[in-house]
């Protein structure tokens, strides 16, 4: 073994879960080679409340590998709370969250090691360079310096920002920062990528670029993606959809299934929520 990579086999142990309850594949392999035996993310009967206010009420859905799934809901639907629970910012009390069959409450380390997250708020440190931000994230996931450098180069090349690696994040545009956040979320090779309204504040062109980039990751990397949004035009034909409204899942399945008998997704969303989608 390359001595620079010593210890990375130990990190792999974080990711090792029983075959009976999981699907083990490399995210760097094309989607066709992956052998999905169970959903990447399973949420069952998830409820959460802050004080007397119920934010999520019996939420259930599953996300398969290699598919872009939109979590569609208006502001206040409970999307951010759902993301906070799936990323274990705080624990849920009712229901279960499983990543590759691994229970988030019982084995959070194994579950979190397989998740990459892009939060709604920017979370890059603007005073550090792009590379320093990536090193920080890689270190938090237990990657060695050599592995971080190698993967950071790959990811930055993929998003076309190799030449900006040494620049402070503060000097990047909003779209570039978003792409760096996605690159950072992929650094530890997650199997599930969660993005909470990642196009907020981006113009139409940048929004399209980020959306295409993530769809391509699903196709080429076999990555399972959960993309929270309130914008119906961010959901493309063939994507999965989970419609969340006032803390409840009103529909889930492929776009075609959710739209069945209604017409467009906008119409289906309006019918389901009893109002207008945006």
């Amino acid at each position, binding site marked *: 073994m390359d001595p620079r990579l*010593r*210890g990375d086999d*130990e*990190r792999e*142990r*974080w990711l090792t879960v029983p075959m009976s309850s999981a699907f083990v594949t490399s995210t760097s392999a094309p989607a066709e080679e992956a052998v999905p035996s169970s959903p990447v993310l399973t949420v069952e009967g998830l409820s959460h409340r*802050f*004080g007397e206010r119920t*934010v999520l009420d019996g939420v259930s859905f599953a996300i398969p590998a290699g598919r872009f799934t939109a979590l569609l*809901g208006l*502001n*206040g*639907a*409970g*999307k*951010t*709370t759902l*993301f*906070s629970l799936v*990323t*274990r*910012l*705080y*624990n849920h009390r009712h229901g279960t969250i499983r990543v590759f069959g691994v229970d988030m409450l019982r084995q*959070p*380390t*194994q579950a*979190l*090691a397989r*998740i990459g*997250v892009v*939060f*709604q*708020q*920017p*979370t*890059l*440190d603007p*005073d*550090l360079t792009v590379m*320093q931000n990536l*090193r*920080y*994230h*890689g*270190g*938090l*996931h*237990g*990657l*060695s310096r050599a592995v971080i450098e190698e993967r950071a180069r790959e990811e930055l090349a993929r998003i076309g920002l190799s030449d900006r690696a040494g620049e402070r994040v503060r000097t990047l545009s909003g779209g570039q920062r978003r792409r760096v956040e996605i690159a950072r979320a992929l650094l530890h090779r997650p199997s599930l990528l969660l993005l*909470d*309204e990642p196009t907020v504040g981006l113009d139409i062109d940048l929004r399209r670029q980020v959306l295409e980039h993530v769809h391509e990751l699903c196709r080429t990397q076999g990555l399972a993606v959960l993309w*929270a949004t309130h914008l119906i035009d961010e959901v493309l034909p063939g994507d999965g959809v989970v419609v969340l409204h006032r803390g409840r899942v009103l529909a889930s399945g492929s776009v075609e299934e959710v739209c069945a008998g209604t017409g467009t997704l906008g119409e289906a969303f309006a019918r389901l929520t009893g109002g207008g989608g945006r």
Partner: protein
Amino acid sequence: MSALLYGRCLRSVVVREGLRFVHQRERFFAALVRPLVWLALFAVGFRAVLGLSIIPPYETYILYEEYVVPGLVGMIQLFNGMQSSLSMVYDREMGSMKTLLVSPLPRWYLLVCKLLAGVMVSILQAYVFIAVAWFWDVQPPPLGYLAVFPALVASGLMLGSLGLLLSSFIKQLENFAGVMNFVIFPMFFASTALYPLWRIREGSPTLAWVAELNPFTHAVELIRFALYLRFDATALLAVLAALVVFLGGAIAAYDPGRGFWARRGGPAEQG
């Protein structure tokens, strides 16, 4: 799980804190200038007012400057702990703390990493200050500079933990002024940082009693004794006890099951 992975995580957090500190040069100068102002202005003015008898760990009469230096080292660490607290609140409000909290290692360990990184920065500042104080003729025995290191680690951990704990109570950055008024200033002034306990007792026995209970007093005395190659067991025990309480409280406050986010929700819970 491998110690190597934990080590990488710690290195990563320490490097980030170090880089932030280097980038914020004004923070370094503020941290250095604050105690120097006290040493150069306050201590000189007080030299005539405050006559000091021979008290341990000193073996002879000393100038007030010499007395106050360990207190000012404590002040550096106290302010650094609060600076860490402020940056935790800022990171939480801005969202960047989430990067840390969603990493796979246990939450308590991530907090300890943050704490150790802050302590490292505070020790660096403390050494620069006692080096500058040497030119003010505050010259403890050479070995004292070495002996004070473990004392600085213990006091830095205790005051840093207090900062972590306080950061969990502060909902918004604007509330930080309250912490200055109700925590930092009372802790600093009701301690032996500026005047010895017997002096305080002369003025007010109640205040002396408060000072004896104040963990900052014990942090200062631990530093003072170590700097003059003496060991104050009571101070060490008091500092360690306070460390256990503050760190335990901070770990509970940031716990994903019981912590404040679980009760109130995270920042930007609008989605």
